């Protein structure tokens, strides 16, 4: 199991399109993945699950991935967060 601390840095936060990108990215990896923010843990492969975090910009979230692809999945998610979901130019 890999755990990473991330910060939502894009201006719009984990809104619908960013969430969809995250979920689609993770769907390509054989892992169980969760995000925890504000005391709530959700399935990071579920669009509505991640949306329920209502995580705005600046929110600290904890990613946990567990499974055969966990290292690659964790790196890919970190890169997506660091790229601000390719939204802010």
């Amino acid at each position: 199991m890999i755990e990473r601390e991330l910060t939502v840095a894009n201006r719009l936060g984990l809104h619908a399109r960013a969430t969809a990108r995250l979920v689609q990215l993770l769907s390509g990896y054989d892992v169980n993945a969760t995000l925890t923010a504000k005391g709530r843990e959700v399935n990071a492969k579920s669009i509505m699950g991640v949306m329920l975090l209502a995580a705005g910009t600046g929110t600290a979230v904890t990613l946990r991935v567990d499974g055969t692809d966990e290292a690659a999945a964790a790196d890919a998610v970190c890169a997506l967060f660091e790229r601000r979901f390719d939204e802010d130019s």
Partner: protein
Amino acid sequence: MAVGILLVTHLGIGTALSAVAGRLLGPLPLAVEAFEIAYDADPDAVLPAASAALRRVDGGDGVLVLTDVYGATPANVAARLAHLGTPVRRVSALSLPMLLRVLNYPELPLDELPAVAAAGARNGVVHDDA
């Protein structure tokens, strides 16, 4: 698996929901088509066009038909689509959370998608008093 998704709705609803899903998800993993029914439409008259839409989205593994209001004309037309030979499962109370959740499980067979759709709609209702 290549289940098709047919949205059978009142005017304006199905097209709008599928357009938003396309914007959020990019290319959709399943064939999605909207079939909207005018307010004063005669169910008998629209059935051939609805049937044609059903056949267009059927990739060979059946079609999940999502309708907006149970008991309304679109849902009644959808009920008749279930008797035309193509495997069809129907779920009402179509919403954006329902559609997004279905599209997040494109690998599932038709028989498992009604539960996925229903959970999507249920989980989308949040008492937002926080």
